[in-house]
């Protein structure tokens, strides 16, 4: 399963509406996780490789303060998380690159914030 799908399972306590790579057309408050490329894979002798994926997590909420609160919860949930398993995939760690970035409001008046994470997953 895709890394973005795996990471979305860590955020369901913050918001039920989580989407991958698509901002929904309707007006709901949501979290969208975008696959954002990443550096090359690391290979190891012995058949292991480490997938490195960058994810951009976008928080969209009509209430700006709530959006910020969600961002802080996302940070608390996953920034620095290490050595864990999701869907039988072994993750080394997740780190936040930089910090919360405000993108203003969209045409429907909803606040947008983004955070960029780097994730490492070992594949045996």
């Amino acid at each position, binding site marked *: 399963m895709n890394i973005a799908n795996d990471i979305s399972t860590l955020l369901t306590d913050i918001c039920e509406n989580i989407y991958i790579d698509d901002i929904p057309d309707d007006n709901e408050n949501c979290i969208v996780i975008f696959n954002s490329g990443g550096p090359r894979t690391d290979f*190891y*002798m012995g058949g292991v490789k480490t997938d490195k994926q960058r994810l951009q997590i976008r928080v969209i909420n009509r209430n700006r303060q709530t959006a910020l609160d969600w961002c802080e919860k996302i940070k608390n949930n996953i920034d620095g998380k290490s050595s864990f398993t999701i869907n039988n995939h072994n993750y080394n760690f997740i780190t936040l690159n930089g910090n919360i970035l405000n993108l203003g409001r969209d045409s429907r008046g909803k606040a947008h914030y983004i955070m960029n994470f780097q994730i490492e997953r070992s594949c045996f």
Partner: protein
Amino acid sequence: MVVAGKNNKIFYKMDSLMINTDDGTEMTNITNYNFNELAEILESAFFGRERKVRQAGVKDCNVSLTGELLAESNGYDGFFEFEVGDTVAIGIWIEKINIGRQVLCIVQKIDVSADASGKVTFSISFESNGAVETLESPY
């Protein structure tokens, strides 16, 4: 033909040389190895000769490995089976061209380091205590 480094394998066995690769334990999570075979070179200069004369002296070998400790299920239940001062046979196997070399060594150094924002890395150095031998595949 390019031989990809990741297809190489490292094997070890405590206290004796390996009969073949099946007789050893494969090490995982290795990022780099150096298998150095050396010969001392003795130089002589003689009156009346325009060039130096060189002769091979004693031979030596040392091996070093570096790697990373990754997430669970990486094959390491604890730490390494060997300690510094132990006798271990270390072998390298280069796939695609099917060449293996091994040597009985003394574990000279085990280094573990950790970066709070990164992974735990290790490096191990071995000094040979015997001749370099061929490491066979069982097939």
